[in-house]
């Protein structure tokens, strides 16, 4: 009894903290300088990409290198439809297009496990990128496209909304039967299938849900770049960044990827302005160090400290 009231009290406190943070973020454009709003929008972008990546790849252990594909589909939806449809509908279309692509890809790649899945998803991004470039050059005769401009404050609020919805979705998936099914797939896929989990269905649906948010993000973020082409929209960096940020933050807890992505995006901003020539080098070093020495990410490290450094304390897989 004691423990349950304690945990509910604790979760109440953390819930109210989250609520306060969101209220602060919602009124931020009223008082903060423009630069902060733009920086926060970038942070939201990476946070959403990372958290939605973790929804599928975190519990199942399938390393998806397809975020760039879904993000890029969102960007292109925005570039094609942005001039003829209102913004909210464009974003919905971007999200749905990515969702459908993920359903298709998921259904096709079910048999691939482990590293095959990773290299397939990686190849997919490159395939779309080159095919699209070829089509653009031969059909439209131009390499890139112009995207309509949207006010920065609106972009900020849209990203904030996507972020909030994603957090709720992620939270409920973790606590639902779907979340348990995903965990069991990650631990032993065959055993999960034998205990009655519809492995195929669970994987495809979750993959598509994660793609949905990436597509929505792509559709709104495209408006910030004004000009896009297949190489910028389907940049494989958008596939690797979420993976890196998730590892850096730690995937065991819901807020791990959020913290990882937020810190990393800020770091990217600082490094890019101060040390433009060393930025990618430092990026690589952090990646290697994080993989070697931070198996549970920043959150895992914090938990380790809190638990008084008990031997071999690993974060949840």
């Amino acid at each position, binding site marked *: 009894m004691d423990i349950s009231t304690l945990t509910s009290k604790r979760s109440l406190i953390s819930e109210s903290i989250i609520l306060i943070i969101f209220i602060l973020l919602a009124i931020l454009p009223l008082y903060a300088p423009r630069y902060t709003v733009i920086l926060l929008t970038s942070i939201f972008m990476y946070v959403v990409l990372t958290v939605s990546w973790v929804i599928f790849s975190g519990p199942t252990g399938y390393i998806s290198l397809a975020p760039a594909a879904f993000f890029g589909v969102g960007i292109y939806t925005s570039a094609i439809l942005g001039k003829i449809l209102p913004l909210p509908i464009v974003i919905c279309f971007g999200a749905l297009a990515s969702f459908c692509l993920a359903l298709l890809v998921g259904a096709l*790649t079910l048999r691939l496990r482990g590293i095959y899945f990773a290299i397939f998803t990686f*190849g997919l991004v490159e395939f779309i990128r080159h095919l699209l470039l070829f089509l653009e050059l031969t059909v439209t005769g131009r390499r890139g496209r112009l995207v309509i401009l949207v006010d920065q404050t609106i972009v900020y609020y849209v990203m904030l909304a996507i972020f909030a919805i994603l957090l709720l979705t992620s939270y409920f998936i973790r606590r639902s039967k779907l979340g348990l099914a995903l965990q069991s797939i990650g631990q032993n896929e065959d055993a999960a299938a034998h205990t009655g989990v519809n492995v195929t269905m669970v994987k495809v649906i979750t993959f598509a849900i994660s793609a949905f948010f990436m597509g929505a993000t792509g559709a709104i973020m495209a408006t910030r770049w004004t000009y896009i082409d297949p190489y910028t929209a389907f940049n494989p960096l958008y596939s690797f960044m979420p993976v890196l940020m998730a590892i850096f933050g730690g995937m065991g807890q819901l807020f791990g990827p959020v913290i990882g992505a937020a810190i990393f995006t800020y770091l990217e901003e600082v490094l890019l302005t101060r040390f433009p020539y060393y930025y990618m080098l430092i990026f690589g070093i952090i990646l290697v160090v994080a993989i070697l020495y931070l198996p549970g990410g920043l959150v895992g490290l914090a938990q380790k400290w809190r638990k008084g450094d008990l031997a071999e304390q690993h974060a949840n897989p």
Partner: protein
Amino acid sequence: MLVEILDIVVAGLLMGGIYALIAVGFSLQYGVARVLNISHGEFIMLGAFITWMLYKVLGVNPLVSLAICGPIILIIGFLLYRTLFTRLRTSSESIGAYEGSSMLASFGLLFIIQNVAILIWGTDIKGYSYLNFGVNLGGAIFAANRLVTLLFAVVIGAAFYLFLARTRLGKAIRAAAQDPVTAGFMGVNINQVLALCFGFGALMAGFGGALISMCYPIQPTMGFQYTIIAIIVVVLGGLGSMVGSFIGGFVLGLIGSIVSYWQPGLSLTAYYLLFIVLLLAKPTGILGK
């Protein structure tokens, strides 16, 4: 017509020789050392730049510098495995977890090596002229340097095959590829052998890079495209199969040459399409069981 066919086929084989070499290296690193090495292309770039430097600064014949840049890159690869990947391998819970984390670590290596190279050599495109004259083969004309690269690719590939098949170390490598744990019980120093495999993989990449620098302009960001080619070839030949990768290299070279004859802009797209179809239809590769 006949000359055109000859032109396409030989051009494909010339490209295929380099593809085969780098794919064998990649396959060795994945098949035995279990590292899906995304930074493979960076070792190709290193090989190309070391050869270029030796030629420009000291005037060393590029074919001679194969013998210089090879060992350097072998040692770099060996040390990298001993420091980074051995630690990852021993701390991973399962082979699947190790494959995932080593792939991501190699992605970090890509950035490190590439950006160090940019700091040293800058981002400009570089190149030199070596054996740059035409050779007439039955009506079709090919550059002599490219014919030399094909010859060397085949010789290096064959030599490595003999090394694997005939020597004691080769046997240890084959044993480690089949089952590292059992190989360890049989007295194979597994950490050493895996590190050597990674080193040999890097060596192949270095050789490939040195040969590439004889025919094509080079720059520090050139590596990644070759990594992608290596991944495709290895999937084509079957992940982990050295012979499959060697043959797959030539097959991909031919496909690329045929496609770019019809539509130059589509050759990369064709590679990926082939790659995706293969993974879906026959993930074990054309020679796989």
